[in-house]
C-alpha cells in the first residue's frame, strides 16, 4: 500500500510541476486564443487581393473607423457596387447575391471579439496615431483574416501604460507596410493624455 501512496504523491507533484504550467501554456496557446487561426467564412474574402492587389483604402469598407466606436462592416449593397459588374456570375458570390435578393445579412464569422463588458472605440485610436496594423496585423498579406493578437487585458494595458512606441505619423496610420521607426515627438503631437489611460472606466462601464 505504501508503494501506491508514494506513486500517488509523486503523480500529484508531477501534476503540479508539469500539469499546471502545461495548462497555462495551453490556455495561452494560439489554439485557445484563436490567434493565427482563420475561421471558415461564407465568402472566401481576401484582404490581400483587395488591399495589396486592388489597392482599396481600408475606409472604403470600414467607413466608420474614424467616426464611430465600431469600424463598420460593409453592407451587401456596398460589395455589389463593384461585384454587380466584376465577377458578377462567379459562384463565389452566390451568398452575396442571395443576401441582397432576400434582404438577409451575410453571416460572417467573427475573428476579433471582445467580451461584452469591454468597450473599445476605433475612432479615438485612429485619431491618436494608432495604426490598423497594431491590432489587426498585415491584413494586406492575409488571404483570410486571422486573429493577430491575443486581445488580453494585459496586451491592451501594454500600450495604455506606454503608448509612445506604438504611435505612427498621421499619414501612415492606414499604411500596413510602413516600417516602424521611433518618433518620440508624436506623443506630444497627438496630445495623448498623461493621466487616466489605465482607469478601469476607460474600457469597462
Amino acid at each position: 500500500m505504501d508503494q501506491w501512496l508514494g506513486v500517488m504523491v509523486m503523480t500529484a507533484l508531477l501534476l503540479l510541476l508539469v500539469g499546471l504550467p502545461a495548462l497555462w501554456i495551453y490556455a495561452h496557446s494560439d489554439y485557445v486564443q484563436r490567434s493565427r487561426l482563420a475561421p471558415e467564412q461564407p465568402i472566401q474574402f481576401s484582404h490581400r487581393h483587395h488591399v495589396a492587389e486592388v489597392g482599396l483604402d481600408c475606409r472604403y469598407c470600414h467607413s466608420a473607423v474614424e467616426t464611430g466606436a465600431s469600424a463598420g462592416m460593409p453592407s451587401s449593397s456596398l460589395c455589389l457596387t463593384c461585384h454587380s459588374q466584376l465577377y458578377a456570375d462567379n459562384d463565389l458570390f452566390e451568398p452575396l447575391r442571395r443576401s441582397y435578393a432576400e434582404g438577409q445579412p451575410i453571416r460572417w464569422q467573427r475573428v476579433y471579439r471582445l467580451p461584452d463588458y469591454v468597450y473599445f472605440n476605433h475612432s479615438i485610436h485612429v485619431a491618436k496615431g494608432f495604426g490598423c496594423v497594431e491590432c489587426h496585423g498585415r491584413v494586406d498579406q492575409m488571404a483570410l483574416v486571422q486573429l493577430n493578437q491575443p486581445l488580453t487585458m494585459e496586451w491592451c494595458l501594454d500600450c495604455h501604460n506606454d503608448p509612445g512606441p506604438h504611435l505612427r505619423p498621421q499619414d501612415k496610420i492606414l499604411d500596413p507596410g510602413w516600417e516602424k521607426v521611433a518618433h518620440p515627438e508624436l506623443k506630444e503631437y497627438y496630445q495623448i493624455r498623461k493621466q487616466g489611460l489605465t482607469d478601469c472606466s476607460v474600457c469597462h462601464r
Partner: protein
Amino acid sequence: MLTGALGRRTFLQLLSGGALALMAGCSPRPRGELLPYVVAPEAGEEQQIFATALPYLGMARGMLVESVAGRPIKIDGNPSHPASLGGSDIYAQAALFDLFDEKRLRMPLRSGRPAAFRQMLDEVKGWLGAGAEGLHILTRTVASPALQAAISALGARWHRYDPIWPVSLACRRPAHLRAPLQPCLVAFDADPLGMHPEHLRLAREWSALRPRLYVLESTPTLTGGRARQRHGLPPVEVERGLWALAARFGMAPAPEGEVRVEPAWLDRVEAELKRGDGLLLAGETLSPQAQALALRLNRRLNAPVDVLPALDQHLLSPNESLHELEGALQAGEVKVLLILEGNPVYERPQFANYLSRAGLTLHHSRVANETSQLCHWVLPASHELESWGDLRAYDGLLSLVQPLIQPLHQSTSGLELLARLKGDERDGYALIRDFWRGRPWDESLRRGFLEGSHSRPLEWSEREPGAAPAPVPETVLIFRPDAGVVDGQLAGNAWLQECPRPFSKLVWGNAVQLGRATAESLGVANGDLLELKVGQQSCTLPAWVEAWQPEGTLAVHFGFGGERGGYDVYPLRAEDAWQAAVGVRKVEGRVLPISTQAHHQLDGRAILQTEAAAVEVDLYGEKAPSESEAWGMVIDLEACIGCNACTVACQVENNIPTVGPAEAARGRELHWIRVDRYDHGERVDFQPVPCQHCENAPCEKVCPVGATMHSHDGLNQMVYNRCVGTRYCANNCPYKVRRFNFFDYWGRGSKGEAPSPPLNLGWFEGEPKNPEVTVRDRGVMEKCTYCVQRISAARIGADKENRAIADGEVVTACQAACPSQAIVFGNLADSGSRVARARSDRRNFALLGELNTKPRTTYLSRPNEVD
C-alpha cells in the same frame, strides 16, 4: 469501485478522467457572428435624435428620442418645445417599456382567435352596408386634429369619456386656464408640479422663479411638498377656505358656519396677494363654482390668466357623452361600436351591461384588457413611437408624432384604422401628410411642432360662483389617479410600477391612505384591512398611514386591481366624482403594501440639513488627483420637487432591471438613485441619493478583489467583471447606495437560476438596452457611475479635437431628465463651471460630511422659509 484498496489501474483511470474533465472546462474562446446591413442606413450605426411628442393626460409634450441602429433607446425632453422645455417625467422616460412590452397584442383577434384584418372590414361592412348609420365610436379625449378629422369624416356618432379629465369648468365652456407662474402662488387642491398636463413647463418655471407658494389641499401633492405653508383639509373645507379668502377681497359671501382654515394662513395669504404679484390656482377636482370663484379672484388680482379653448371642446361633461352611448345601446341603435384605446369596462364597470347590446364591438388597444374581453374584435394599436400622427399640447400647440421604428406587431394606428374603415389603404405617413397639406412640414418635423399654432385666448363669460358649500360631517373618500400608473393604462409598465410613489413610497400596488389620528380612531396600522362602503359598493384595501392625509378623509388611487396588482377602486366611484361620503370599517386580515420608505436606511443618522448655513466641509482637501478633470455633482434640494424623473431616467439609461413585487418587498430594488422623503410636520423634504463618489470611499477599502476603484478624475468605479459578490462594499457604504443583483433579473438565463416565482417583468428577448452600458449578471454589485458612458463619449469627442471637455458637455441622465433643473454635473477642477459655482454656494453641504468621506456629490440645502 472505490471500496477496498485503490488499485493502480483504478487510480490511473480516475486520473485520466479527471484530466479530461479539466480539459473540457477550457473551451476555446467563444465565436460570434458579424451581421452587416444589407443596405446600410444613412446614419450607419451612429446615434440619431428625432423630435416627436408623447401624450400625458392625453396632451402632447415634445420629446427627443435617441435612436441607435434603428432602435429607440432613450427619451428626453425637447428643449425647444414649450410644453416640456427639455424636462421629462417618469411617463416619458418609461414609454419605451410600453413599446417593447411583451404583453402587447400581436395580431387582430376575433373572439380571442387570430384573424385577418380584412375579415374585420368585411364583417363591419356586413353590419353597416355602404353607409355609416349605426356606427358609433367611443374615444377618450382626442387631442389629435388629424384623428378628430378622421373620426368626423367617417360620419359615425362620436362619444367620448375620460376618467381623468384635466379641463377647467371655471367658465361657461370647458377651457384650459393657463398663466405664467407669478412670484406668489396660492393653490387650492391644484397640483401644477404633478398631475397637470403642463407640469414640465410649470416645474421649470417654478424652479426659475421659486415663488412664495401657499397650499390648501385634500391629498398630499408634489406642489404641497414645496409650499411655504401647506394645510391639509377635507375637499369641502378647501373650497370653503377659498370662499373665506374671496370674502376678504369682497368677492364672495363669507362661508356660513365655522371655517377650518386657520385664520393665520388666511391673514398671510391675504397680505401676500395684496402685494399685487399673486396668482390663484384652483384644481380641476374642485367644483365648477369654486373654479369660477378662483378665476374671478384672479381677474380682480390682475393675474394674467388666459382662458384657452379645451382641446376637445364638444365634451361638456365626461359623462354626458357616455350616457348618450349607453342610451343608444339600450335602444338597440348601435350596430357597430368601435372603442378607440381606453378601457371603459374597467373604468366604469356598469358600462359592461350595455356593451353586449351592440351588434359588433371592436376594441383598438395595445394590450388586452377588461374591455377587449367583452368585444368581438380586438385590434392591436400601434405605440406612439411606431406611428405617424399629430397631437396638441395643453396650450393647443400642434406637435408632430413621428415613428422611431416600424410597427413591431400587426398593429395599426388609430388614424390608419379609421382610414381602413373608409376603404383608404394609405399608410399613416401618407395620411398625416395629406392632413398637413399647406402647413410647413419639414420645419415642423425637424422641430417637433408647428410654430405659432397654439390656441388664442378666448373672451370668456363667468359662471356665478354662488355661496360656499356647506361643511360635510361624514368621512370623505377622495379619488385620485395614481402617481405611477395614472388611470391604469400604464399598469403593465414595470418601470412605473416599481417607481416609488413620491409620498408613500409604495410600489407595485395601492392602499387606502389615512391620517394618523384617523388611523388611531379606527384602530388600524399599516397593512390592516379596511372595508370602504360607498352607496351599495364596497371594497377592502389595506390601510397606509400618511401623515399628510387630512384627518377625516381617506384617499385611494385608481389604476390597480386584478393583474395590475393592488386593488381596483373604480367601482366605488360614482360617475366622475372626485370624492364620496364613505363608511369605513376595520375587517380581519393584514396585507402589508410594499413601500421602499424604510429600505436602505442610514442607521438613524440625521443627515438632511435644512438650515441656510450648512456645515463647513473641506471640499478639495489634500486629495486632488487630477488637475484637468474632477467630476462632481450638486443637487439643489430647494429645486427638487420629488417627482422621481431622475430615478426612471437612470433606470433606462443604465440598463437597470426591475425586480418585481416579491423582491421589492425584500428591499432588493435596484434603482441607482433613490429619492428619500423627510417629514418635519407641515414640511416635507425630498433628497435624491445616488452614489456620492467619495474621494475617501469606504467601499473601496473593503473590496477583496479590487472591483471598486478610484479613477484619476474622481469616479468611484465599479468593475463588474471583477466583482465576486461579497457585498462588503454595500455594508461599508454609509449612504447605502450600492445595489446587488441577487438574481438574474434580466432573465437572460445564462447562469442564474430563475427566481421563484418567475418574475416575468415584461421584456422579451432582443429588447433594446443602452448599448453603451454593460448588462450586469447575477451576483454582481452595481451603483451610480455618474453616467461614465456619457463622460467617455464626451472625452473621446474632445480628445479627437485636442481640446478640453467643455462645461455642460457631459449631462448625466438624471440631470437631463430633471424638470426643475435641480441637478448640476460637471468638472470641479474648472472653477468657472456651473457645478463649481453651485458648490461654492453657502447652502452647500456634504451628506454625512463629518465622516470625512469627501463626497463628490453635494447638496444645496433647502432654506427654512423666513421672511
